[in-house]
């Protein structure tokens, strides 16, 4: 792709201009794609051009402005790619550098029987998951999904056959690498299919660099009857990055999804979760933690669609906002007509460390059945004065007491994680975030 060879002026429409240049490049190239994919890409390109970038009046973007996209300009190159974390020798790791498979950095050894992990381009040519591909994250009518479908140049395919168990988490590391492109952009695509009764853990980490970059990843998760998936998504991109990602999942009968989204990085980030509870007894639980500091905007937009009876969903989100940090939480629960015996819970708690921080928390319920248990609550506040006093009354200084309580507030999300190694590394990261941003500035 040659989208970054031309540096467009940072002006109105610059993003769209750059996008259409890369689209032309993509169409011209069409390398080894199978015929069905070529056709899909052509349709996606037409969608991108027809839809145009969503404007400020688009309902889905009312609280999150895309203006920063037009200002995204290549800077003088600052440093290289972030260092890869150290992996255990038996870890399953697939690295995508600016959205493309990096064989050198990946480790895909000793897969258990019934488990297939492959770079997406290979899988698309061989496995022909065409019928299911793009079924959950549809390109029709969706600008960013269409952009991803037109431009993706790599990704991950994971399939577990019936009853298969992936004994170790599959770690997908997305690297933004400015040494390869002046304005790195990534449109990675992850496609996961868990057949009946299969079980796996997938961890997606988005690591960034100092300069400007754009990530537009799409992850599709298909859980067939009784399948279980633990899915964590950690966004740690650089301070100039823009990250707009979507996770689309479909849960069939008795399937269970345990999801987590943590946001530390980027200037503008959105993670969308679109979950369809399509079979009796399906359960989805999505937890989240966002920590926007000065100059950062973090958006979680979720839609949990109860299409079948006896389904459960839980959304549990916490945010700590520092400086002029902004956050958006939009959690929609939809219950289809006739979908009885539904249990849907949603909570979103926010801690504002500065009077300049702002959060829009908008629960949204759309219920077309009557036997439904639904609860939702959003709180926005400061640290509990009683708890602060208790700690100080034992000799702990004011600042340390605040740090302790702030940590505890966020750690309630992390402590629910079953994987010890991941949990303790996130806890360490949280402590270092708090050391930099955790001090409460005076409220007016």
């Amino acid at each position, binding site marked *: 792709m040659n989208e970054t060879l031309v540096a467009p002026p940072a002006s109105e429409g610059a993003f769209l201009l750059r996008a259409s240049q890369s689209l032309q490049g993509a169409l011209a190239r069409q390398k080894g794609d199978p015929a069905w994919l070529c056709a899909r890409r052509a349709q996606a390109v037409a969608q991108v051009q027809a839809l145009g970038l969503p404007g400020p009046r688009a309902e889905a973007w009312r609280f999150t402005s895309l203006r920063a996209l037009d200002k995204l300009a290549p800077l003088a190159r600052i440093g290289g790619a972030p260092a890869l974390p150290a992996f255990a020798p038996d870890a399953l790791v697939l690295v995508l550098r600016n959205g493309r498979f990096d064989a050198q950095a990946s480790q895909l050894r000793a897969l258990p029987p019934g488990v297939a992990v492959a770079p997406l381009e290979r899988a698309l040519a061989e496995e022909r998951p065409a019928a299911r591909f793009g079924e959950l994250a549809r390109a029709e009518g969706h600008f960013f999904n269409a952009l991803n479908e037109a431009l993706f140049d790599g990704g991950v395919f994971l399939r577990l056959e019936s009853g298969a168990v992936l004994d170790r988490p599959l770690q997908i590391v997305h690297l933004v690498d400015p040494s390869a492109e002046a304005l790195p952009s990534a449109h990675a695509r992850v496609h996961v299919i868990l057949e009946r009764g299969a079980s796996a853990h997938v961890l997606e980490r988005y690591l960034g660099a100092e300069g400007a970059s754009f990530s537009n990843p799409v992850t599709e998760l298909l859980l067939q009857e009784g399948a279980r998936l633990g899915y964590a998504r950690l966004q740690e991109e650089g301070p100039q990055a823009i990250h707009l990602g979507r996770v689309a999942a479909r849960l069939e009968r008795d399937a269970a999804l345990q999801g987590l989204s943590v946001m530390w990085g980027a200037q503008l980030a959105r993670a969308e979760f679109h979950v369809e509870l399509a079979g009796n007894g399906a359960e989805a639980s999505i937890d989240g933690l966002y920590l926007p500091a000065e100059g950062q905007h973090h958006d979680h937009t979720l839609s949990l669609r109860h299409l079948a009876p006896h389904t459960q969903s839980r959304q549990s989100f916490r945010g700590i906002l520092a400086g002029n940090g902004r956050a958006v939480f939009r959690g929609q629960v939809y219950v289809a007509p006739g979908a009885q015996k539904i249990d849907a819970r949603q909570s979103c708690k926010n801690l504002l460390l500065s009077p300049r921080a702002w959060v829009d928390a908008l629960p949204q319920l759309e219920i077309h059945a009557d036997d439904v248990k639904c609860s939702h609550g959003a709180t926005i506040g400061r640290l509990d004065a009683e708890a602060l006093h208790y*700690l100080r*009354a034992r*000799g*702990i200084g004011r600042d*340390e007491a605040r740090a*302790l*309580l702030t940590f505890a507030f966020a750690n*309630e999300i992390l402590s629910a994680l079953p994987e010890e190694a991941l949990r303790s590394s996130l806890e360490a990261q949280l402590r270092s975030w708090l050391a930099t941003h955790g001090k409460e500035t005076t409220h007016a």
Partner: protein
Amino acid sequence: MTRPALFEIRDLKARVPEAEILHGLSLTIGPGEVHAIMGPNGSGKSTLAHVLTGREDYEIVGGSVRFAGADLLAMNVEERARAGVFLSFQYPIEIPGVATAYFLRAALNAVRKSKGLPEIDAMDFLTLAKEKAKLVQMDQRFLSRALNEGFSGGEKKRNEIFQMAVLEPRFAILDETDSGLDVDALRAVSNGVNALRSPERSFLVITHYHRLLEHIRPDFVHVLMKGRIVKSGGPELALELDRRGYQWVEEELAGTAGASR
């Protein structure tokens, strides 16, 4: 020769925005002494405990408090705790997400640091904490659980005394630590307190019941009513209050007030 007082409260007046609660309270406590305070609900016992430990909801409008020769009222909450003033709260709160052991080590290290002592590491702390937990017969598993989260009333009170045992204050206030305890828990808590009694350490025990004072024998008993200490005596006063209630004290007061006119 009498030793200098550890605690000296003179004519203390404190208020909340709505009303004055302590109307000139005086009390002197020597080193090693155990004083009990009894009094009807709403008389200001917890307010006294909070004012002495620096809670910011109360405004001091008169009087003075000296602790080991220093001006206690000039110190903030954590400075008082580090100087060795401890309160076993009447209603200990739950703090989700903060493990008891983690919190208490931070507290102990804050106290040690203020005394110029080195920090205690996690291993040594655990040894110490386990030993002290035994003292109040507290289940060691509570150490790794979030502070008081889901604890019963009795467990919370034990946890307060356990914290006292670890922090080893010079002056401890127990605010109705016995309320809601069954016989076994009461004995465990009392044993914890008695193990800490020493010629250097003083206690102020707030209670409604003589029962606690059978385990923790006080040197002095005071009656607090309407924001003042209105009567003081020896351990026998506690028994009388337990038996007869407070009405007679009030009547006696009204009588002397009338007679002195």
